[in-house]
């Protein structure tokens, strides 16, 4: 569906992304896993077009992605933002649907699944971190683009909420939506993702399903009982 080829991003002398290449398959939940400072957010911001790349191309169906096509293909949901803090959640959803011509048919369903009904009349600035995360996820799910990039979708959520959100994301993926999630909690990633990209120090250290990554790790003589051990072995 979507390929990133040789992406490089530098901040002065610091190379945040170094020749990063990977692919995203239609309808999958792809997890971007890496420690803090590994370049996950930089990669997402470059993919979302809110940060310029120094080198590399984005390709869809073997054709380079123009800015216009990018806007129709993917939506990047940033982490740690408080958009329109004085506006209500209800209005933010209306704005998302109106401005981006979003998926209006899903509105009630998304509100119910993410349990943000009681928050609809609260202003976004007054929400707790977890509440805000759910409201933002609702915005992301209502966007029209087939590929959703969500940066740390479980950050700020408790265990129960994390599981419910994971279930929700999975169900939309099974309905045809493609998800690319940046996750630093490996247990969360293991719960929701079909495939994984391991990012460390701005470079890709592995890409594949758990089994594929585990076999790479075991080839290095590492324990492969769970994703955490695989991650540690490969990064």
């Amino acid at each position, binding site marked *: 569906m979507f390929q990133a080829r040789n992406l490089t991003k530098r901040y002065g002398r610091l190379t945040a992304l170094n020749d990063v290449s990977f692919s995203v398959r239609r309808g999958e939940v792809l997890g971007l896993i890496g420690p803090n400072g590994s370049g996950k957010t930089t990669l997402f911001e470059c993919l979302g077009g*809110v940060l310029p790349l120094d080198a590399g191309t984005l390709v869809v169906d073997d054709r380079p992605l123009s800015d216009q096509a990018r*806007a129709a293909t993917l939506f*990047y949901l940033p982490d740690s*933002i408080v*958009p*329109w*803090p004085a*506006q209500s959640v209800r209005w933010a959803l209306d*704005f998302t649907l*109106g401005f981006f011509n979003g998926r209006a048919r899903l509105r009630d369903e998304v509100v119910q699944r993410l349990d943000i009904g009681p928050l609809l009349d609260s202003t976004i600035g007054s929400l707790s971190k977890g509440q805000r995360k759910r409201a933002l996820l609702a915005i992301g799910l209502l966007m029209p683009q087939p590929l959703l990039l969500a940066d740390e979708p479980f950050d700020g959520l408790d265990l129960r909420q994390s599981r419910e959100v994971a279930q929700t994301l999975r169900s939309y993926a099974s309905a045809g939506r493609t998800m690319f999630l940046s996750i630093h909690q490996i247990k969360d990633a293991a719960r929701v993702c079909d495939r994984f990209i391991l990012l460390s120090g701005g470079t890709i250290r592995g890409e594949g399903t758990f089994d594929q990554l585990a076999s790479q790790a075991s080839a290095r003589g590492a324990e492969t009982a769970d994703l955490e051990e695989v991650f540690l072995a490969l990064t």
Partner: protein
Amino acid sequence: MPSRSPAVCAPSAVSSFAWLLVKEYRELVASRAWWVLLLAMGPLVGVTFISAVRTYGEASGLNGTTAGVGEAFSPLIGIWAPTFSACEVAAVFLLPFVAIRLVSGDRQSGALKIEMQHPIPAFARIGAKALVLFGGWMVASLAPLAAAVLWKSYGGSVYPPELSSVVFGHLLNAGLTIGLACAAAALTEHPSTAAIVTLSVTVGTWILNFIAAVQGGIWERIAGYTPPAMIAQFQHGLIRLDVVLIAIALVTSGLALASLWLRLGVSVRRRVQESVALAAIAVLVLVTASVASPSWDLSENRMNSFPEADEEVLAKIHGPLEIEVHLAPEDPRRADLDRKAIAKLRRVMPALRVQYISATSIGLFEQTAPHYGEIWYELGGKKEMSRATTAESALETIYDLAGIKPPVEKDDEIFHGHPLAVAPKGAAAIFYFVWPAACVVGAFFIRRRPI
């Protein structure tokens, strides 16, 4: 099970822009900065209007004083200019913060990262903000317009063309502030930096005016397009096409610069290159606009024009008129000559060429120089010197050089003035109590539930 993903269809540009307008409106009415601007406008206009009406009334014979000269009583200078000066203060010290809040707020909150993923052009995004800010300014302008209604209720004269000129001038000035503040907010990371940049540019224009007053020459010409100079012309009922075009070009350039720098996904190098190209285009447009000569005197007493009979005669003089003025930039006689004669001549004789000659800026130590104080007029190969700086003497010299008999001034052309000796009844209650109270109540309800 969720529904299948619908095919992505591009949102209609018109509908998206309408949503942006709604969003910017909601952000504006949610901002404290705008309500503070609105609140402050009442007392600011109150102070200026009440003191203007009192002064006008005293000069017109209020409290038993002798009535002044009728010709001097023009509401344009006596009432509208001081009353609307509140707008100038608000445009310099309050409006920038409202504009910066609207632009920087999106960047600070992260909303920009969401909104910029929409394919709508960046100029449309900043345009929506500018339109809403302009609308917000119009609401604030209701305070001086309320003063106009009060003045009319006192029996005061309202000459709509000259009042329109003042209002138009302040709208253009607000546009300049909005353009500047939007550009500063887009160029800088933090609102506080944007505020410092905006106020620095404003102070810069004041310094430019000072340098122009001292140095004259090209500085004087450039300073003629700064907001204070521009407003002064509109306050005198004069609308110059070059000033209007330059103001519009500056506003557009500021908004265009802002739109370039709000595209966070474009490399800084490319944004710098595009900004340089924009600056080059802007300079070209400004220089071209500066040669536009049409102007309109909307003042009731024709304070920017010679009497109509004189203008008819002057328009028939085709030869280029050259004036050589031996007066320093800071010599008050030069300002007098410029205002009373040369500015009026420029409007009817486009072929006029004026040359200023002085060795110093203040002229204090040039008084004994052989030619200092002389004003030489040259027309059709003939030269004549005068030392007078009045419109009458300038006209007399020009008619003499052209060999034309001066026209006779008609009585019905003389402006007889509108003296009015009244107290500003009810103004204090309206501007100090009703207006602020309405703002507080409005802020309380509308900020919670925008209309």
